[in-house]
Structure formats: C-alpha cells, structure tokens
C-alpha cells in the first residue's frame, strides 16, 4: 500500500525532477507571458515608424507630404530586409573585439524558436530579433526629420542602407550586444538613448548641414500643413513607446510595469513644460508644442526608463520639455542650421539629456541589475554615461559625414531648385497627396 503510494508518487515527481533539473541546469524555457509581451511590444514599436511618418508628414508643406511619409515607410521595408539578411548578425551576432557582431547569423541562421539566454532567457530568440528590428527601423526614420523637403529619393535610399549598416548596427552592438564595449563599460541605456536618439539626432544635424537650407528658409513661412496629422503621429508614437520602453524589460514583470509608468509620466511632464515655456516666452501654448513636448519627454526617459522611479521621471520630463523647446526655438535660430523638423533639437538634445539624467537618477532600488546614479551616491555612473554620449556623438557625426560623401559620389543628394519649389512629391514619386481640384 505504502509502496504503491510511493511509486504513484514517485512517477510524477520524477517528471518534475527532470524538468527541474533541466531548469536548474539553465536550459532556457519559453514563458508564454513574456513572449506575448515582447511580440506585442514589437508590434507596438513597429507602429511607431508610421506614427513618425505622420508626425513628420503633418509638419511639412503640403507639396512634400508624400515624400516625407514615404521616407519613413520605405525605411521600414529596407531595414526589415537588411536585418534579416545581415543586420541582426552584425548587431547581435557573436562578439568580434567588442565592436561588432560576427556574420555567423546571416539570414537569421541559427536564430531560432528557442531562447538565447545571452539576450532573453524566456522568449524565443526570433522574438528578440523581431523586437530589436523595430528599434533599428525607427532610428533611421528619425534622421529623416532633419533633411525633409530637399533630399532626392535615390540618394536617400542609398543613405538608408549605409547608415543602418555602418552606424546603427555597430552602435547597437556596443550598447546591447553581448560583449559590446559600452555594455562592458557599464553604460546604462535601457531602451536606446544613445543608440537610437543621440545617433539619429546628431546624424540628422550633420545631414542638414551638408545638404544646406531649404530654399526660402528664413524668408518664407514654412508652416505645418496638417497639424491633426502631426497629433495623430505623436499619439501613435506615445502608444508605441510603451512597447519600446516597457518591452525592453523583455519580460512582463515589475520592471516592465515600472518602465511603463515612468515613460508615460515623463511624456506628460515634458508636454506640459514645453507648452508653458512657449506660453511664457512666445505668448501661446501650441498644439505643435504639446505634440513635440511629449516626444521630447519620451526621448529623454528612454535610456532611464528601466532604472528610475516615477518622481525622477517627472523631473526628467519637465527638463526635457524646457531644454528641447529652447533648442528648437532659440538654438536653431541662433546657429542658423535648417534642421527642418527638429530631429536634432528633439532627439539629439533630448537623448543627450536623457543619457546624462540616467547617470543622475538611476537607482538599484528600481533595478538591481542596473546601477546607482549621482543622486544615489555613485558619481562614477554619470562619468560612464558621459563617455557613452561623447562616443556616440563622435561616431555618428563622423560616419554620417563619410556616408554622405560616399553617396554623393554615386548620385546627387539634393533636389534641384525646380523640384524643390514644385514640392518633392511630384518629381520624386509622380503623385500628389490630395486631389484639390478633382
């Protein structure tokens, strides 16, 4: 009797045992909750790039709206294919001298249905690759804000392929790749302050400088042609950013919830501080200001989102709104570059603030795997963050210059004066956005 019981008892326990040993031995097991979370997050981040297309598209003049939207849209396509073919391997493949991933995962070979514990132990490796792809996409798309309304489409295509391969892929490896030097150094960048925002903003600035100003800049009014479209874009960005930041926890856990809350808080605070800055300095709180402000707040919280609590998020957001708003209204005018839709002013400046703020406000109480910042007794972190920021600025600036020179060898970068005056939609794509006369 007792024996029987014991046997009946041992059988399932044995199964448990085995499964537990397996677990204990570290063989990663897929968690459906985490997988669900990361796949949905990847979809949310994907939606950010069309969101950006509308955010930017609403801000340009009517005659350029299609060419602006097209840039973001085609970037989704180009980077998606590049990533599968070799981009993912360059970024996350087995480390080569802390600088780049090896090419052993070409065509996603070996990137399979099982987890890769180096990156995420509870979700399929392919889910991680898909999630990361969406980051690669939006980063290049952000750059387009600086050179809107004047770049030729063929030059833009070439630029995109080169930029994502030569700048984004290595940077992603440095910061997030197993073995990357910034990761090893301890730079904290939860969801891409350096990799995504500084790199795109700085590259945008360089491109704007190389291309030169739009015809009529400074003399003609260049008003947004459809602000509700811009608000739609900002809303989709905000919505998708939950996937961006909370999803970067790579697990549906407390850290994800925390990242979710601080993301929302910072966006809100920055929108408020941006419109109040405007209200005080320029007389009116604008809708464009609110939309831009929330994006500035989202940018700034991105690197910090897995390391700070809600009150620091309020502070990070408030500052982001003020700083970026001043950068866009005064710095740009003072220095006189034509960063058409302020990719540099919002992402370059906001990303830099966010990366440094992470060095101020990071706390191990939120994320034991992270670090403490200056205000939690560890000034060293701020220094590390600073190193990360400087390296990213330099890398992005220099290589963007190189890429532009290279592209210019093959095809001319800038539209002709006639094309620019006509608006790029017709000369580049043979289409008009709206049929005002039927």
């Amino acid at each position, binding site marked *: 009797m007792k024996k029987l019981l014991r046997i009946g008892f041992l059988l399932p326990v044995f199964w448990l045992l085995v499964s537990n040993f397996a677990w204990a031995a570290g063989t990663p097991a897929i968690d459906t909750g985490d997988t669900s979370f990361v796949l949905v997050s990847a979809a949310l981040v994907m939606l950010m790039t069309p969101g950006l297309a509308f955010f930017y598209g609403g801000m340009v003049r009517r005659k350029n709206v299609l060419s602006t939207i097209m840039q973001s849209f085609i970037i989704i396509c180009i980077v998606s294919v590049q990533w599968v073919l070799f981009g993912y391997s360059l970024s996350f493949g087995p480390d080569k001298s802390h600088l780049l991933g090896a090419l052993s995962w070409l065509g996603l070979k070996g990137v399979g249905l099982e987890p890769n514990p180096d990156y995420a132990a509870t979700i399929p490796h392919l889910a991680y690759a898909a999630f990361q792809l969406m980051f690669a996409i939006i980063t290049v798309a952000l750059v387009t804000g600086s050179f809107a309304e004047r770049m030729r489409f063929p030059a833009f295509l070439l630029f995109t392929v080169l930029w994502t391969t030569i700048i984004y892929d290595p940077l992603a490896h440095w910061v997030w790749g197993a073995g990357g030097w910034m990761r090893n150094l301890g730079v904290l960048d939860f969801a891409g302050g350096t990799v995504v925002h500084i790199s795109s903003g700085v590259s945008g600035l360089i491109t704007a400088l190389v291309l030169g100003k739009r015809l009529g800049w400074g003399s003609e*009014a260049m*008003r*947004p042609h459809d602000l509700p479209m811009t608000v739609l874009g900002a809303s989709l960005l905000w919505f998708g950013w939950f996937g961006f930041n909370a999803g970067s926890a790579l697990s549906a856990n407390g850290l994800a919830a925390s990242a979710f809350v601080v993301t929302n808080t910072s966006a809100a605070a920055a929108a408020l501080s941006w419109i109040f800055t405007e209200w005080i300095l320029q007389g009116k709180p604008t809708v464009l200001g609110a939309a831009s402000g929330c994006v500035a707040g989202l940018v700034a919280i991105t690197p910090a989102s897995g390391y700070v609590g809600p009150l620091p998020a309020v502070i990070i957001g408030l500052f982001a709104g003020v700083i970026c708003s001043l950068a866009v*209204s005064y710095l740009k005018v003072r220095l006189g570059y034509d960063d058409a839709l302020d990719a540099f002013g919002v992402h370059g400046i906001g990303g830099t603030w966010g990366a440094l703020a992470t060095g101020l406000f990071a706390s191990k109480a939120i994320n034991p795997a992270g670090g403490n910042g200056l205000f939690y007794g560890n000034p060293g972190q701020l220094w590390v963050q600073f190193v990360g920021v400087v390296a990213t600025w330099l890398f992005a600036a220099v290589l963007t210059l190189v890429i532009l020179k290279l592209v210019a060898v093959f095809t001319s970068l800038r539209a002709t004066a006639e094309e620019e005056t006509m608006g790029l939609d017709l000369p580049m794509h043979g289409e008009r956005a709206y049929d005002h006369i039927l």
Partner: protein
Amino acid sequence: MTKLSCIIRPEKLEAVKAALSKLGNCGMTVSQVVGCGSQRGWKEVYRGVETTINLLPKVKVEIVVKDDQVDQVVDAVCSAARTGEIGDGKIFIYPVANVIRIRTGEKGEGAI
C-alpha cells in the same frame, strides 16, 4: 448684366443665402478665400517661429443678375452679412458682357 462679387464672413453664408432666396434669386457661385483689409491679423507661432497672418478666412459669393436687380440684391446681401464690426467685407460690382447656359446654349439675360 452685372456681377456682384461679395466677400463676406464665412459664418454669414447661410444668412446671405436665405436673404437671396427670399428675393427669388437662387443662382450663385461660392468659393473659399482669405482676405485682408482693415481687419487686424492674428499671430501664429510654430516652434518659436512667429508669423502674423492677416489673411483671414472669408467666403466669396458671386451672383450674376440683371441690371435692374442690382440694388435690391446689394441691399439684401448687406443687411444679411452685416455685423457692424470691422471685417464684414465688400461687394465688388462688375459689368458682364454675356452669359451662356451650357445645357441649352441660351445666351443673354435668359441664361442667368
């Protein structure tokens, strides 16, 4: 024949239409315009770049009438479109050489 081109406030369009149809006059062509005159403009700001827009939305109502109807139509439009504030608009009056109804080919006053 005469054309009256009335630049009015957009929100007065319905009243003007009603006044005209009271006169039994229902032929008109309407379009959206912006205009300026004595009315003051408004300040616009986009990311710190300030511009004054003094072109404000108006509606243009074009009415072609027989010469003997001009006065009554002018009066009707004026009283329907007036608020007494600056920006009420103008009526510009032009000579019309001829009118043709496309459907029938009719010409002259009969075609109005």
